[in-house]
């Protein structure tokens, strides 16, 4: 009941002072803005379009796979559908999503800066992204690509008859946008932190975005070069990977995965940051082992560069290389495990509130753990040989990228929606969507582990009838998942006009972004903030959480004997 009175106590009047949304409402004030918050919203709009496009390709595939025959899509159309799905989802949705929407919006706010280090470069990177996106859509309209998102040679250079050049150009251009953004983020974290905000006082979201940016800066250019090589070979007949003239297709795989494995961490590291913010806020706890959370992020960023060979266990690599890459892949799992254990320890004795954002976060921890553990299956050479190019692999990386990164994106949007828009979303709908997403995801992708282990190969649309039951399960789950993705778009849109006005800090969270109004003013803060303490100050450091004061912790299994 007290909740309701508290809600009613908030006056539903527009805020008196001007905020970044009301400062200029013309189209030019948006398209020529250098305000990081507005650029974040431009990104949000663009990325949502690509989420729909990539999602549409997934819908086509899931419908096609309901029956073992190829009755909806031709062989060629199916190849083009999964390639388009992969290219769009990786480069136009997952990689830019959390960094460019939440990172762009929150990074300056979280470190107490007025904007990013290079505001005009930030806007430019959005325009570059739009150009890349137009190229990607052109690729689709011109007939699509059929190489898979991996562009393996010599298929992509000599045999594929799709629009390889346009697709490569789209990804190449998108890379410039990524690099520009990450240079901006790195410079911002180094140079624009508020007075007193030392490195080990940074929120973990800032650390995660910072580490992601470093990986982006160092990995993306390698992809750019390898795409350039592909482009040159296909367009001008210049031999680089052509085996007839002494070229080595395996070299392409090395260069490609040197980028594309770190790219996995580009997709998942920002989620780690989001989850750390959510878990601490809704458990009312300091994060467990802050320093090790930071080291784990940096460790992942570093070792993530050294494991690309585990994508090539069956490509003809030497056994020594296989074993080294296998070992390093186990090594990179350690910091991920540290993060999962630390989140769990943060929950321990916390005052957990099951708000929608927290449900997303808990779902993330579970799904990411499954995704991570199956990653260890794939890191061990004998198991990998058995499940290479099966749905087991598909299930594994969707657990990380969709169960992990997309859950974190939705959780983060739910958490920061009041800050971004100044309006509250309807909490019960959000909880429903979060729970639906968890179960929809499980129904869609868990059957893929089973059918993959049984031998269902990926990228096939005509398959043996014994796998049909699993495909039907997955397709049915995909319906739930689609609803769970669309629902927030509905209630977020509704809340823009009808949602309750948000206070500056509706969740009672720490962090500088909550110290300013919702939505923030154009220059972010009314007075430059000064930081005097570390992050997640939900309770005095050595006193433990407030719950301890109220009731002593009882071990489960009945009352224990206490000294009188």
């Amino acid at each position: 009941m007290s909740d309701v009175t508290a809600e009613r106590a908030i006056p539903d009047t527009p805020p008196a002072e001007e905020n970044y949304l009301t400062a200029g409402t013309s189209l030019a004030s948006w398209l020529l803005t250098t305000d990081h918050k507005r650029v974040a919203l431009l990104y949000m709009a663009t990325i949502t379009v690509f989420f729909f496009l990539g999602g549409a390709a997934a819908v086509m595939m899931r419908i096609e796979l309901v029956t073992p025959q190829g009755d909806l899509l031709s062989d060629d159309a199916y190849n083009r559908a999964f390639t388009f799905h992969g290219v769009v989802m990786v480069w136009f949705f997952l990689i830019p999503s959390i960094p460019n929407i939440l990172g762009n919006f929150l990074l300056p706010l979280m470190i107490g800066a007025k904007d990013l280090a290079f505001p005009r470069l930030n806007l430019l990177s959005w325009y570059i992204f739009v150009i890349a996106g137009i190229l990607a859509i052109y690729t689709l309209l011109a007939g699509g690509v059929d190489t898979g998102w991996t562009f393996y040679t010599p298929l992509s250079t000599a045999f594929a008859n799709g629009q390889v050049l346009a697709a490569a150009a789209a990804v190449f251009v998108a890379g410039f946008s990524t690099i520009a953004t990450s240079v901006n983020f790195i410079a911002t974290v180094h140079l624009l932190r508020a007075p007193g905000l030392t490195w080990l006082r940074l929120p973990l979201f800032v650390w995660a975005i910072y580490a992601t940016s470093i990986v982006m800066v160092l990995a993306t250019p390698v992809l750019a070069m390898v795409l350039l090589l592909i482009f040159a070979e296909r367009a001008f007949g210049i031999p680089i990977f052509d085996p007839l003239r002494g070229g080595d297709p395996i070299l392409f795989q090395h260069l490609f995965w040197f980028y594309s494995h770190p790219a996995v961490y580009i997709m998942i590291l920002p989620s780690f940051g989001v989850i750390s913010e959510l878990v601490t806020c809704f458990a009312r706890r300091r994060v467990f082992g802050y320093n090790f959370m930071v080291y784990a992020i940096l460790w992942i960023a570093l070792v993530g560069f050294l494991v690309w060979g585990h994508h090539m266990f069956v490509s003809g690599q030497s056994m020594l290389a296989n074993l080294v890459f296998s070992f390093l892949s186990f090594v990179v799992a350690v910091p991920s495990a540290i993060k999962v254990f630390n989140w769990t320890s943060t929950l321990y004795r916390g005052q957990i509130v099951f708000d929608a954002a927290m449900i997303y976060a808990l779902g993330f921890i579970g799904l990411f753990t499954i995704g991570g553990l199956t990653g260890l299956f794939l890191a061990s050479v004998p198991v990998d040989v058995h499940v290479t190019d099966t749905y087991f692999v598909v299930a594994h990386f969707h657990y990380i990228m969709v169960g992990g990164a997309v859950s974190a994106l939705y959780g983060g949007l739910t958490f920061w929606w009041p800050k971004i828009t100044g309006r509250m979303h309807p909490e019960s709908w959000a909880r429903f969507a979060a729970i639906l997403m968890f179960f929809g995801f499980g129904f869609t992708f868990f059957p893929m582990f089973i059918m993959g282990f049984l031998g269902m190969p990926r990228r096939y649309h005509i398959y043996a009838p014994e796998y049909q039951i699993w495909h039907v399960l997955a397709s049915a789950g995909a319906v739930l998942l689609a609803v769970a993705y669309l629902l927030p778009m509905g209630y977020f849109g509704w809340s823009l006009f009808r949602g309750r006005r948000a206070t500056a800090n509706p969740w009672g969270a720490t962090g500088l972004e909550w110290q300013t109004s919702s939505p923030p003013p154009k220059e972010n803060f009314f007075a430059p903030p000064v930081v005097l303490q570390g992050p997640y100050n939900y309770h005095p450091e050595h006193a433990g959480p407030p719950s301890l004061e109220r009731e002593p912790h009882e071990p489960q299994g009945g009352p224990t004997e206490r000294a009188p």
Partner: protein
Amino acid sequence: MSGAAALRKPYRSLRRQREAAEFGLWVFLGSEVMFFAGALTAYAVYRALWAEAFTAAARETSIFYGTLNTAILLTSSLAMAAAAEAARAGLRRMTLRCLGLTIALGLAFLAVKGLEYREDIQKHLVPGNGFALAEPKAQIFFAFYWLLTGVHALHMVIGLGVVATLLVQAWRRRRPLASPAFEAAGLYWHFVDIVWIVLYPLLYLAGRA
């Protein structure tokens, strides 16, 4: 032109803004290093695999043009460094002259490169049908030759555009000399120079030792 005119939005001091421009450019150059590293790794792999074909092919490049261009480019870096220092010291005429000299030398480099390309085409050194050398693996060397020098020349064109923009802005007094852009443009120019210093031995001196 006072320092305050050059101060832009998120910064509270000009010193920090200058640091940011230089730092940002260094990070970007880290990215550029990885860009060239991708191609140079591929070059290294093939050179290790087909050592004889590579040395034979490398003898076909024009050492005269290559060496001339190395000299031109190193001199242009000197001019660029002088321009950045002059701008920092507030010497307007010196800055304008050095920027002009940098552009002239950069254009000279591209002109020499153009002459070299013309000669290469006449000698049928473009990979594909009618390639001058019988060994197919020699085509891989020339694939890298065209690709690396081409990408380098593209970087030169971008650098020339940046320096020319700065020259015009400084000449019309629309950009204060205290702007960190001069130093940043210098960093980029020197980077492109360093790339050439790596390319020169790999493409021209290989097989001539």
